[in-house]
């Protein structure tokens, strides 16, 4: 059952990903991307990471996608005017294919290390994923976490300055 579910999700994810790259209209691409994001969120849930799934939906499917769609509408670009793809489709596909081959080869050939951390599904369900992440975040990763705030601040300022016509 779970395997079937996994396969369906995988199918959806891959198809929508392909749609992202192939759709003529950026809006369609964007919608397909949202679909992919949701599939990924599903994966996260299946991987006992509900908090990540929630954040995935909120940040990606919510914030970022809204931003992208806004931009698309703001710039009012519907279709790629001349050619949808550049002429390098074949070459690009080859490179993509080799990327896939490489990674797949690593995944298949290499073997993943056996579990070594304290985290188990049981533990997550007992303590709650959010709490685990939160504890980790505000203890071991406090400094990087704070730094991200600066990063975001810089991004805000940068975005404002860049997008303004005249400063």
């Amino acid at each position, binding site marked *: 059952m*779970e395997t079937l579910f996994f396969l369906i999700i*995988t199918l959806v*994810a891959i198809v929508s*990903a*392909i749609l*992202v*790259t192939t*759709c003529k209209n*950026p809006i369609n691409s*964007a919608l397909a*991307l949202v679909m*992919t994001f949701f599939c*990924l969120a599903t*994966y996260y849930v*299946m*991987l*006992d*990471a509900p908090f*990540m799934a929630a954040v*995935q939906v909120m*940040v*990606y499917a919510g*914030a*970022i996608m809204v*931003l*992208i769609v806004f*931009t698309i509408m703001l*710039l009012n*670009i519907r279709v*790629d005017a001349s050619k949808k*793809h*550049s002429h390098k489709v074949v070459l*690009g*596909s080859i490179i*993509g294919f080799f*990327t*896939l081959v490489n*990674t797949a080869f690593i*995944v*298949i050939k290499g073997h*993943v290390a056996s*579990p*070594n951390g*304290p*985290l188990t*599904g049981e533990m997550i369900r007992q303590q709650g994923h959010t709490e685990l*992440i939160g504890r*980790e975040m505000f203890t071991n*990763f406090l400094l*990087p976490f704070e730094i*991200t705030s600066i*990063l*975001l601040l*810089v*991004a805000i300022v*940068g*975005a404002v*300055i*860049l*997008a303004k016509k005249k400063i």
Partner: protein
Amino acid sequence: MENVNSYLIVSAILFSIGTIGVLTRKNAIVIFMCVELMLNAVNLTFVALSRHLGNLDGQIFVFFVMTVAAAEAAVGLALMIAFYNNKESIDVEDVNIMKW
């Protein structure tokens, strides 16, 4: 729960599709979306391995990736608007000033 390898394969496939998109599309926004797709593929790897190894670090990392992605989206889209204001286009083939 599926074998971790399945997730990694899915991630690889998504990543490759994203790569192809980045390399073949001309619309900067679509390229941008493909980059997001690649990022997400990597995120999936992180989460899957984190779960498999029983270590939360990977998921924390995903959190940071998302932060960066958000910042990137803000700045990147601002760049596109700025570029559009200049050139009335967001076609990457019109961007050729990155040379000496």
